[in-house]
């Protein structure tokens, strides 16, 4: 077995990698002394893959909204019952999640890692879906959707995506809607599975006090690939660089208004180190402009226009990127005005180099903290991997970013005509 070892001496971490003959990429991050072992088996398929060409066909298949998430639920079903029961018998905690660009199946355990791992590799490779179980799942997911419909934080954020994007499928709720999941059936689910769940489109990440070569050996034994690697043609609609709407509002049972606003990003590189550089730079810029040490945050806080719920973030994937910031406020429009004033002023007068250095250092420190948690490591690993990079690359990324580069990104990203806002008002 050809196992590669990479040491990250300055943060006391090691990574072992191995590529299975099917194309499956495997990674082990050992964490000596930890009780939990965490394994995730993830595919590069998420809610944004609503259009694709099924291998062997010519036409574009357009699938109902929410199907990637539906499929995630269904994979737990096996001929002899739910695989969740088998994990419970082993005393471990299985779970799964669907995001915009990936679906991950995972478990954490403190014991019997080999048995749990085998179970994970087996069930994800062996779907067993019946019409009956599909119908039952519609009720359960229906309740999941209803739960999120009442979640103001979720809604204010998704409404912002709707304001940014007219066609890009990132604007679609990951679970879909009650109507859209009504159209899902066994055949479409199998189509999605067969297109995207080939090992060459997937990765395995194991984090914990494990023996890497044993883990890779187990993968060797468990991966059964009978089909050739499919050519996956992912279709994304043409999305204009412009925002869809500048403002969107909804009423829900909340005590005071919530808002999220941000900039739709364009002209960005969404792969590799360059992608990480843009991501870390925008995050540093956001903190410089509106972080807790900024003049703006403190003024807005003192005036009672924002409170400690105010946060900011930046997301980047293969076909979209945006910044989003907000929280609770009695006057979201006023906050927006002040934010724009500050950004304009900074663009005129220039950013402060010292501030940049200081915040970059703080980010580096916080990045190291993430390595405390096996789940965090695995989760970040998967998401960064599908962007063509490695989560341990962040360390070198921070050092690569210059003040000049930050200025360039500042002027590119924070442009007035790319700004959109979403507000949830009390009903």
């Amino acid at each position, binding site marked *: 077995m050809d196992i590669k070892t990479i040491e990250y001496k300055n*943060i*006391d971490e090691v990574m072992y990698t191995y590529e299975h003959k099917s194309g499956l990429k495997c990674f082990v991050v050992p*964490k*000596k*002394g*930890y*009780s*939990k072992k965490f394994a995730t088996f993830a595919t590069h398929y998420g809610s944004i893959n609503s259009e694709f060409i099924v291998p062997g066909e010519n036409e574009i298949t357009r699938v109902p909204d929410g199907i990637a998430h539906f499929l995630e639920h269904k994979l737990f079903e096996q001929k002899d019952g*739910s695989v*969740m*029961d088998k*994990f*419970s018998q*082993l*005393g*471990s*905690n*299985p779970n799964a999640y669907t995001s915009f660009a990936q679906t991950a199946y995972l478990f954490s355990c*403190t*014991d019997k890692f080999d048995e749990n791992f085998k179970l994970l590799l087996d069930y994800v490779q062996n779907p067993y879906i019946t019409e009956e179980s599909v119908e039952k*799942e519609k*009720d359960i*997911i229906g*309740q*999941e959707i*209803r*739960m999120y*419909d*009442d*979640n*103001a*934080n979720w809604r204010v954020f998704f409404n912002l995506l709707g304001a940014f994007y007219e066609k890009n499928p990132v604007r679609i709720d990951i679970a879909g809607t009650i109507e859209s999941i009504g159209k899902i059936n066994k055949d479409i689910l199998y189509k999605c599975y067969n297109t995207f769940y080939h090992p060459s489109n997937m990765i395995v990440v194991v984090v914990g006090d494990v023996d890497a070569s044993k883990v890779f050996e187990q993968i060797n034994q468990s991966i059964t690939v009978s089909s050739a690697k499919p050519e996956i043609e992912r279709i994304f609609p043409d999305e204009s660089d412009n925002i869809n709407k500048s403002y969107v509002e909804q*009423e829900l*049972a*909340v*005590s*005071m208004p919530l808002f999220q606003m941000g900039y739709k990003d364009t002209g960005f590189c969404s792969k590799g180190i360059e992608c990480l550089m843009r991501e870390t730079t925008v995050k540093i810029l956001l903190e410089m402009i509106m972080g*807790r*040490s*900024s*003049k703006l*945050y*403190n003024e807005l*806080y*003192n005036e009672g226009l924002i*409170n*400690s719920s105010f946060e900011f973030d930046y997301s980047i994937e293969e076909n979209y990127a945006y910044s989003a910031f907000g929280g*609770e406020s009695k006057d979201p429009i006023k906050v927006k005005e002040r934010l724009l004033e500050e950004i304009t002023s900074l663009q005129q007068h220039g950013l402060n180099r010292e501030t940049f250095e*200081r*915040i970059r250092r*703080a980010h580096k*420190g*916080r990045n*190291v*903290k993430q*390595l*405390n*948690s*096996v789940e965090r490591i695995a989760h970040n690993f998967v998401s960064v991997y599908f962007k063509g990079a490695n989560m341990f690359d962040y360390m070198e990324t921070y050092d690569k970013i210059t003040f000049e580069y930050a200025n360039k990104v500042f002027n590119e990203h924070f442009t007035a005509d790319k700004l959109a806002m979403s507000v949830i008002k009390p*009903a």
Partner: protein
Amino acid sequence: MTNITLSGNQVLEIASFSGIKVYQIKTDKFKTNSVNIFFHDNLCRENASKNALLPAVLRRGSVNYPTIQDISLKLEELYGAAFDCGITKKGENQIIQFYLDFISDKYAKAEEDLTKKAFDLLFEIITRPITQKGVFKKEYLEQEAKNLKELIESRVNDKVQYGVDKCLEVMCEDEPFGIFDYGNIEDIGSINESNLYEHYKYFLETLPIYVFISGDIKEEKVGYIIDKLKQIKRGDIKKIQEVSIENHVSEVKEVTEQMNVNQAKLSIGFRTNTRPNSENYYKLMLYNSILGGGIHSKLFQNVREKNGMAYYVFSRLEKFKGLMVISGGIEISNKDKAYEVIVKQLEDMKNGNISDYEFESSVKSIETGIKSLKDSQLQVVDFNLSQIIAGTKDSPDDIIDKVKGLTREDVMDVAKNIEMDTVYFLTSK
């Protein structure tokens, strides 16, 4: 220095003076060190809102760092150290927490004295607030009082949590437990910068304090921390009241609340009549796990998987007040059907209709959960704090052993003491 071992060989009580207990958790497996400081009060109307407002005002500024901006700048300088404070409720105990976590010295440049600087900042925020005319700054008080009101009002935003908390509060409306962690809006209006400052002195001088130092910290730094803590002026230490748990329900309360919601929440509150420091508590833990403690549980398998009525449904213990709550998000029209299925599970528990799978997977689930907490600094601290408040001296392994020794009869035994008290239903208008 006392050396009472609290849990195996991992946590040590290293000092105890003037109602302040200091614990050290020695570990080098994390990349961070942390200091957690807890103040312990009885949960009562008189103090609840004041105790909630106090950390909010303290974090606004100290003598050397008089604004949030100054504190934030300092934290950034300390390699992105994180500071926060907040309130939790453990039974009828109100716990006020301050913490700071920061990367280990080895990840900061060699000349930085990170641990000492981090602790100094935390200590200063707590003990040397910025004042004006000898009391808190009026401006800070007013702003945080407003924020606190809004925080309490915003409870309705999280329908899942609200559905659980409201059930328990209604159930215990005539008891201290019925008070929300952050107190009541009505009590905030009478708080001003002077009386809160008076309360602050009482807070700092008399409330029991627990300090947890976690990570890979040199002995001399630990000594430094203890010496600084000894500087806090202390008086007669407040006695924490024992909570009343025994309660026999004569009639089940039924409460419905209406709000603009898409999904209803059904919550049922119970009196377990089980004290956290009794032998029955371990039986109750197992009971709860079988009933609704995860995907293996009766509630999950029957309400969600078999009947498709919920996406989430669980049972949870409020250990310190001896309560249990079942909660699930359901279709509005399914209330009666869901209630029926839940009641059937409760009956099965009483009758010992528990399969081998249900029993064994619950024991294993508890074991895995407890073993897992060792991987989180915060969870280890919380585990030990809970032991202190419950008056027990179990290590994580002790609990696992006790649960493993239980039988179906034990579960049926503790089921006899559990009484349904309140049914709460949050539905649409």
